[in-house]
């Protein structure tokens, strides 16, 4: 890792935004209620891939949301670690979406979803090596040059580890933040799921996070199977993940938080309860600091 420079050097991209507090992942089923009641939600994260339609109701609906709320874009289709060439059509479309809706930032995952022209529509894992670090960093820089902005890269959940990996996930992420000049979207549920699935210590993992490069936190629920945890986004945030979140905010409490719930989607009010819980934890931490 000697070739890796400090992750805290200044970026050539500016990233300023009004995104603060705990936001919610916007899901289609909730949009009519949100537009009718305009609830007091600080921001929404948009799954940009679900809003790629060039016309019709989908972009109009997003325009309406955008008029009332700050938004960010979360993507699954950049395939940042794919051996395939970058999908320029996808990136051009994304750039059009960015121009039209002006998200505060754009994020995608440390994974690949495309190989040999086939899209798997899933976040597939990669071995963590110097070679893959160099390759993925270059790809991220290319994407940032195309989009003309720094992006956030999210740590993904995984169910395998590769014999070839010579770096830990966190060593890889440190290297990536430096080499690619990107920022980190820290998914604390993914940290917990991975540590359970691969017998690592989640608290130690969180201790090694480069705090100054975390731009957003994701919280979500997993599904427990007898031999592994599945990052299913179909449940409330687990108590173990809330504990990790409390541990993290002791070190930094000013990072925007996002509640993700994509399957078995509950009533909007239930989502807000999860967001309120995150806000209470953040508020308690700030009171503790003041005291």
């Amino acid at each position, binding site marked *: 890792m000697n070739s890796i420079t400090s992750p805290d050097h200044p970026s050539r991209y500016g990233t300023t935004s009004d995104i603060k507090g705990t936001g919610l992942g916007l899901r289609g089923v909730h949009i009519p209620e949100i537009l009718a009641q305009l609830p007091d939600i600080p921001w929404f994260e948009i799954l940009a891939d679900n809003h790629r339609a060039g016309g*019709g109701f989908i972009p109009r609906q997003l325009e309406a949301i955008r008029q009332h709320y700050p938004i960010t874009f979360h993507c699954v289709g950049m395939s940042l670690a794919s051996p395939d060439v970058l999908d320029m059509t*996808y990136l051009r479309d994304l750039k059009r979406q960015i121009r039209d809706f002006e998200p505060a930032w754009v994020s995608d995952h440390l994974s690949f979803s495309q190989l040999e022209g086939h899209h*798997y529509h899933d976040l597939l894992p990669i071995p963590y090596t110097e070679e893959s670090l160099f390759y993925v960093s270059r790809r991220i820089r290319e994407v940032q040059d195309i989009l003309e902005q720094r992006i956030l890269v999210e740590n993904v959940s995984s169910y395998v580890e590769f*014999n070839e990996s010579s770096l830990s996930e966190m060593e890889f992420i440190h290297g990536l933040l430096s080499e690619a000049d990107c920022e980190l979207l820290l998914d604390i549920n993914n940290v917990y799921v991975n540590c359970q699935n691969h017998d690592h210590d989640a608290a130690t993992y969180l201790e090694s996070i480069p705090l100054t490069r975390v731009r957003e936190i994701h919280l979500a629920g997993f599904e427990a199977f007898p031999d592994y945890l599945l990052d299913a986004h179909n449940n409330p945030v687990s108590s173990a993940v809330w504990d990790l979140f409390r541990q993290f905010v002791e070190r930094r409490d000013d990072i925007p938080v996002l509640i993700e719930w994509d399957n078995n989607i509950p009533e909007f009010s239930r989502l807000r309860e999860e967001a309120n819980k995150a806000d209470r934890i953040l508020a308690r931490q700030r009171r503790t600091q003041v005291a």
Partner: protein
Amino acid sequence: MFSTIQTLFARSLHPTVSQETLLRSTQTLRQQGGLSPEQRLMIYRNNVTTSLIFALKDIYPVIVQILGDNYFSLMTQDYVWSADSSNPDLNHFGRDFPSYLEQQVQTTPALEELPYLPDLASLECAWHAAYYADDDPVFDFDGLAQVAQQGQPIRLKVSHSLCLLASDYPVLTLWKLHRYHQSPDSLNSVAQTEYYCLYRKHYSPMAIRLNQTDFQFLEACQQGCNLDTIASNENMAGPLSKIPMFIRHGLICSFEPE
């Protein structure tokens, strides 16, 4: 080495992967906990399969209603891995499902009594595509008048969202029956082929029945025939007189000089 491992990993997710590739892929994975490397790979295979079936159910809700959720899931398990998956947009996935369903109907005894399923699936696919289609331009009447004055031949262009379907089964009636839980009183077998047109008006997909000549006219426009060629067919007199109506309803959205 990096891309070799990824290639092995992704290829081994396909259910038709060779034992050799699967073995080579599992050999790149660490032995951990209570699951074998192959079982860990299968978590990913199952994730992909489940999310693609979920996407199909969203596009083909009436087919799911007719076949039942479990049967649909079972029937599409292989399809989702053989389907065209060259588009990163999941809304484009499953466009070739009606063809797959046609094969299934022909080869599966349990589906023999449902010969209309492929046409019904085509209708659902067209509905979904219309919902996500690009917006059309506002029709340029002044430009059309200018071109007409110059006597230039033109092609009429149909809406981005337009899809034309012909079926020997009353699939539009069937679809409405299931989708809107309408009374089955109006369901009759058809004596001759029915012609449909699906498109989006403002924000809502629409499905309407056409007569054969209107269908043929719109089909000719969709195929890029110029208006003079179309007009040379004497059967087209009726549809030609309806061009203003087609424009008003958004079925025809623009024109181009030849």
